[in-house]
């Protein structure tokens, strides 16, 4: 278990303020926040690269605040891979064991194991400069995992990759986590990543942790305006998708949401509140989704209003409309309305 107590660090441009966190053994913990929130410096302080200004870090009840990185047994993987360019893939992966003075034969065996796990066995004699981003990141992960770290820190490991590669590597991170059962702290600014990988997550802003919880809790009940804003929340559902005739029908608590994303099986669905149309009468349009519901609450947020519409499922839909339309339509809590949105506005992941 890793326990962080009131950790602060000021590097000028980036800083941490009074961060406290508890991460359990074997947990896949996500830290979500915008650029400049202090996510990287949080990881680097946990790894021991920076000395904390104040606060303490405990790893398995041992106070590691003042011990150097090499004695912490915490692995680090950066967004930009940081593979050593003058070493082969094999030498890169084995780098840490060489520091520990492990015999050559044993290093070779472990390198083979890890290369196999990460699917880079065929690249062992190449140099990093000649490899794709996805390949380099797999090697960076193998290089960290060979040390059997108690905690693996991932600093936006998928951000520099193209969508397809990122998706595949994300799946592999999940597999690796279930095989190795290493505690992972993964920093990201992608809400999808946080949702799909994390068993729990923290939202970070301006050097502070603003919320901790399961992804579901955080997305459904953001505790701060920042979290709500940053997560772009509202309208996140779970459902069962069936693909038929180039269109997907997703069953969410008994209602059928139509999506243009053809991904069958158990899925998450999100629809941005701005993408939903609200009307007092049913309208005929090309939009594939239309539901009748009741307004349960109205939230005034300046020029844009957010209204919650209960259509008979667990969570109400959130719809964003301008103050002007709200006034003209004469909407009231309890009033009956129709919500309409296009199949292409339904984001499935």
């Amino acid at each position, binding site marked *: 278990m890793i326990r962080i107590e009131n950790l602060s660090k000021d590097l000028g441009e980036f800083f941490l303020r009074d961060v406290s966190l508890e991460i359990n053994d074997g947990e896949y913990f996500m830290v979500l926040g915008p650029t400049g929130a202090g996510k990287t410096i949080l990881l*680097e302080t946990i*790894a*021991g*690269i920076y000395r904390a200004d104040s606060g303490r870090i405990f790893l398995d009840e041992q106070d590691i605040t003042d011990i*150097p*990185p*090499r004695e*912490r047994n*915490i*692995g*680090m993987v*950066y967004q*930009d891979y*940081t593979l*050593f*360019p*003058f070493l082969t893939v094999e030498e890169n992966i084995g*780098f*840490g064991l060489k*520091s*520990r003075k492990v015999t050559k034969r044993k290093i070779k065996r472990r390198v083979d194991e890890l290369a196999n796990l990460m699917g880079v066995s065929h690249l062992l004699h190449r140099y990093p400069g000649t490899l794709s981003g996805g390949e380099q990141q797999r090697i960076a992960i193998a*290089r*960290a995992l060979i*040390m059997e770290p108690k905690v693996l820190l991932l600093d936006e490991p998928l951000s520099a990759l193209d969508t397809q590669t990122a998706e595949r590597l994300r799946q592999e991170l999940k597999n690796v986590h279930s095989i190795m059962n290493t505690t992972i702290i993964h920093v990201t600014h992608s809400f999808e990543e946080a949702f799909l990988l994390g068993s729990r997550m923290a939202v970070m802003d301006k050097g502070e942790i603003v919320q901790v919880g399961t992804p579901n809790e955080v997305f459904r009940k953001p505790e701060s305006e920042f979290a709500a804003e940053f997560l772009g929340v509202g309208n996140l559902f779970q459902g069962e998708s069936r693909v038929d005739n180039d269109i997907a029908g997703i069953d969410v608590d008994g209602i059928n949401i139509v999506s243009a994303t053809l991904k069958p099986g158990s899925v998450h669905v999100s629809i941005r509140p701005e993408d939903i149309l609200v009307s007092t009468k049913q309208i005929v349009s090309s939009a594939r989704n239309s539901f009748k519901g009741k307004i349960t609450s109205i939230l005034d947020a300046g020029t844009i209003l957010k209204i919650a519409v209960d259509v008979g499922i667990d969570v109400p839909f959130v719809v964003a409309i301008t103050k002007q339309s709200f006034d003209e339509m004469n909407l009231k809590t309890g009033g009956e309305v129709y919500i309409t949105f296009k199949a292409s506005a339904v984001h499935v992941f």
Partner: protein
Amino acid sequence: MLRKLKRSKIKIITILSSLFLALFILVLITCVVTHTTLPALITSVLSEEIQFAIKLSLATAVVSTVMCIGISIPAAYALARYDFFGKSVVNTILDAPLALPPLVAGVGLLILFGTTSFGKSLSDAGLVFVFTPLGIIIAQFFVNVPFMFRILRGTFQSINPRYEYVAETLGCTEAQAFWRVTLPMSKNGLLAGSIITWSKGIGEFGAALMVAGATRMKTETLPISLFLNMSCGELDLAIAAATILIIISLISLFVFERYGGFTRVF
């Protein structure tokens, strides 16, 4: 093509200027190497005096380059990585020898090692710099260390410190991270710096002349030999020294462009 060229006056003028400059340099070098006959050149190169000058030049330049590396690696690393009080002043001072005329540097070195109690205690300990080959080495070191320092500083700055951070999480101490990661990544800069420092060391004249003097067969490096033989009319020996200096410069330039051309010196 030719017609197009004619239309642009500025193009013609600039290209002609570059050709003129190239020709000027070429003629100058050719003048030196063709001044004597080849057999005379070979005899001179094999003469005892020139052989001595070659050996002394090579040896002093190697030693001064090693000294430049030895001090520049830590100094350049500190200025590339850390913030400390007086950093910008230190940076400026370290660049100063570049702008200082070598003769002035030589006078300074002569005063420091010849007249101060610091110099006297060194000479009592057996380290005599004035009018000795040691003086040549210290002169080369002082004049050329900014080149090594600047190239290495640029090299270290260009290496993301995250490489060292990762190495530290992989079991390295700070020193090991530097030795196993940063230094190998600085290979090109180190090579470029060494070549430029060494070849400038070979050609160092002004400062070395002031500190070590121009004593035949004692402090006679190739440039000193060129100077001595020129002044007493031994033209063949002078040309031999000049030719060797030209060859060394051209080879160094080639190697530098090949492996270190990316590094900014100024």
